[in-house]
């Protein structure tokens, strides 16, 4: 283990602020900027850890089978062996997905891009609080987010909105155009009116594209909701047909049901969309994905995530410019971020307080705990207040110190640090590890406290709790 002194502080920024923390034993990058940019070329959308996960169609089949057997919350059905078998398969699939997320984050050689995957998965948040999402949250990240993080924003947006996890999470499959064929038929049959659900439309505008003050109004929400009618999820039969050619090869599990679609031209943000089918909402998404309001909203969020809770205006402007010039090509935006001087300002001024996810991952990477499955990191994250794929709302987890730096949260991290240190074992020397994890930024005061600890376990716990390790 080398103990670099007088090391370039940009190295610590590259591995901690842009990455997921130093991995114990890994060499430090010689050229921090180049190290980050090279990752744009070497990122794997489907690394080994993810290759073994169920994927969207398989997850959807299991979810559909469960529905057919009586769904969640049906106590009589839940007692049958078949229901239990399918339920267990969904649970196991979810556990495999969670493990894949941890494994790829812990083992990755492209931590900057992995962090971008987490960023976008949180931007397009789905939550397993809704039972139907449990089978699909991992598949969403695998099939909708991971392949598109280095593409155009529009493609990422369309993939996210068409994924069954998002459609089910935001109630889209039940939404019917009041004048659609299906609604009129149903009304004739039983006199009950079917209607719109605005949830997906609202979150697209508020959370996924323009942002909450992005210049749209209630009419735009309703019009987009009308345009989205018919966007739905394939049925159990269609998902189960082995070898059946998918209608939308790039959107597994998505189906457009013309009978639910509200007929007519739509007007969103002053523009008319006369398209008659699923292309109507796609055309609206295209305009949203390439608008300046969206560019500014996304640039602000990226700058806040990587640089500062209150990002410098000049940095945000630069990212907006890169987004608009390239038509929303995300790699251009990431390049602009890495090449911005503001992103490399030394701590403490802009340092980010780690979220529980950031902190636990960097602690596990730093202490070489990646292989210790006995830790059950997903359960640890529940204790730390940031359970995997379970944000409290479609807005995702918050991304500022104000949300995470709290008395009780610190107390939990201490308890967790103690447990991690016990797992790591007494052979990890925190005095030597400190300068590796925090090259050039470890303070003398922290080094002294670590050195003064009563045991190796305490020393390691203190390193993980240090003010420098709490931030990135």
């Amino acid at each position, binding site marked *: 283990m080398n103990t670099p002194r007088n090391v370039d502080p940009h190295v610590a920024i590259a591995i901690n602020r842009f990455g997921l923390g130093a991995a114990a034993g890994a060499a430090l990058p010689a050229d921090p900027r180049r190290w980050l940019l090279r990752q744009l070329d070497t990122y794997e959308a489907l690394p080994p850890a993810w290759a073994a996960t169920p994927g969207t169609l398989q997850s959807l089949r299991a979810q559909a089978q469960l529905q057919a057997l009586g769904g969640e919350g049906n106590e009589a059905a839940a007692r049958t062996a078949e229901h239990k078998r399918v339920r267990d398969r969904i649970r196991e699939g979810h556990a495999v997905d969670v493990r894949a997320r941890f494994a790829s984050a812990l083992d990755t050689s492209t931590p900057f891009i992995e962090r971008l995957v987490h960023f976008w998965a949180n931007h397009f948040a789905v939550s397993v609080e809704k039972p139907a999402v449990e089978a699909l949250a991992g598949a969403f990240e695998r099939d909708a987010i991971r392949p598109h993080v280095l593409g155009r924003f529009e493609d990422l947006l369309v993939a996210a909105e068409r994924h069954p996890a998002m459609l089910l999470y935001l109630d889209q499959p039940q*939404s*019917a155009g009041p004048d659609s064929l299906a609604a009129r038929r149903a009304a004739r049959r039983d006199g009950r009116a079917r209607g719109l659900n605005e949830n997906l439309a609202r979150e697209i505008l508020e959370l996924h594209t323009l942002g*909450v003050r992005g210049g749209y109004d209630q009419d735009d929400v309703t019009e987009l909701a009308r345009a989205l009618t018919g966007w739905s999820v394939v049925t159990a039969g269609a998902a189960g047909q082995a070898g059946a050619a998918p209608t939308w090869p790039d959107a597994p599990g998505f189906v457009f049901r013309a009978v639910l679609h509200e007929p007519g031209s739509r007007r969103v943000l002053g523009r008319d969309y006369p398209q008659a089918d699923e292309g109507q909402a796609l055309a609206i998404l295209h305009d949203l994905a390439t608008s300046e309001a969206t560019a500014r909203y996304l640039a602000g969020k990226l700058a806040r995530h990587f640089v500062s809770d209150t990002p410098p205006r000049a940095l945000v402007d630069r990212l907006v410019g890169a987004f608009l010039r390239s038509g929303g090509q995300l790699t251009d935006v990431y390049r602009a971020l890495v090449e911005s001087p503001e992103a490399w300002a030394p701590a403490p001024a802009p340092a980010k307080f780690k979220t529980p996810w950031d902190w636990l991952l960097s602690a596990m990477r730093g202490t070489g705990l990646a292989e210790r499955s006995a830790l059950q990191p997903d359960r640890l994250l529940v204790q730390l207040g940031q359970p995997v794929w379970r944000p409290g709302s479609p807005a995702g987890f918050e991304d500022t110190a104000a949300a995470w730096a709290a008395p009780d949260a610190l107390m*939990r991290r201490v308890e967790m640090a103690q447990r991690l240190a016990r797992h790591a074992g007494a052979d990890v020397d925190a005095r030597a590890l400190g300068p590796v994890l925090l090259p050039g930024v470890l303070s003398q005061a922290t080094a002294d406290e670590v050195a003064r600890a009563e045991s190796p376990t305490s020393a390691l716990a203190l390193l993980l709790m240090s*003010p420098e390790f709490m931030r990135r």
Partner: protein
Amino acid sequence: MTSTPTRGCTRRGFLRAAGMTGGLALLAPRLLLANAATERRFVFVIQRGAADGLDTLVPYADPAYAALRGGLAIDASAAHRLDGSFALHPALNEAANLFAAKQALFVHAVASPYRERSHFDGQNVLETGGAAPHRLKDGWLNRLAALLPSDGREPLALASTVPTALRGDAKVASYAPSALPDASDDLLLRVGQLYASDPLLGSLWESALRTRGIAGEAVGGPGTARRDAEAIGTLAAGFLARPDGPRIAMIETQGWDTHSRQQARLATHLGALDRLLGALRDGLGPAWAQTVVLVATEFGRTASINGTGGTDHGTGSAAMLVGGAVKGGRVLADWPGLAPGDLYEGRDLRPTMDLDALIASAVGECFSLEPGMVARTLFPRSGRRATLPSLLRS
């Protein structure tokens, strides 16, 4: 105090029933500063996700209600009838008992100044007390804490992170039941040394240690409390009942965003809220007589149901004041009506009461603070500041 579902004379009726006019409210005797010896407790229960006021406090006498809600309308005969106009959702049994005991007061067609439909922004306005989202960085509960004498009794958030309403310069504590093993005293001490010169972590850590000291006694050690509503209510009461405990607490509840299957989901969440209120009352014991609990949400839901058995984001909603200190057994409402022309933007319950005024008046009376000063401090925006006097027993 009663309410009526017809428009026109209701506002005057409200003022008469309250025994006040605008002028009198300003002359009512109030201390300028907080009474240091206060035994009063104030609990803010936030309903995150925009709770549906129309199915919570059902305007059963309004002929438009049943039509708007269709098959999902709450059956008035199964609900707790409060007066000639309003009934309480059937799941709110404790709340109905409290109303009968004159310890619960409900407010309808109420809203913060926020008129859009984003949870994020709506909660920000409700919690900061600003006129618009993100104008203020700190929360009104934190500013309220600053008005009370500093005696080391910090307000408490029953959550692992500090919610916006409690963020600000005044120190607050947060506590959530933990299933983790305790860290050793030695480690806690050393972490304190590590944070001694860090402005952010240093003060958070001090607060964490202090809360841990109280928490151990209140719940018999961490990890024992179940995280359901009743346990949270009991836990909060354990802190608040202590003579040296906090006088202000905030409890966050979630799950109110009922876009689909509203009937079942609302019944579940109202039932949980009801148990929380019951547990607070039981746990506070004699201190319940000194307690005011405010239950409020960021905005309401659409007056009519949507196509999926739920409701979408709306404007006006209902709020509750419960507690032994509340002058209860009343519904306060300047009922705007639910006819198509009466709805806000043709779709929502039109707000006719100001949630900020309700909060300012309730906390002002609770802690014997001058109402104008409370309103200016908690909700520092321009314009008229109405008050709703005589909410509590003096």
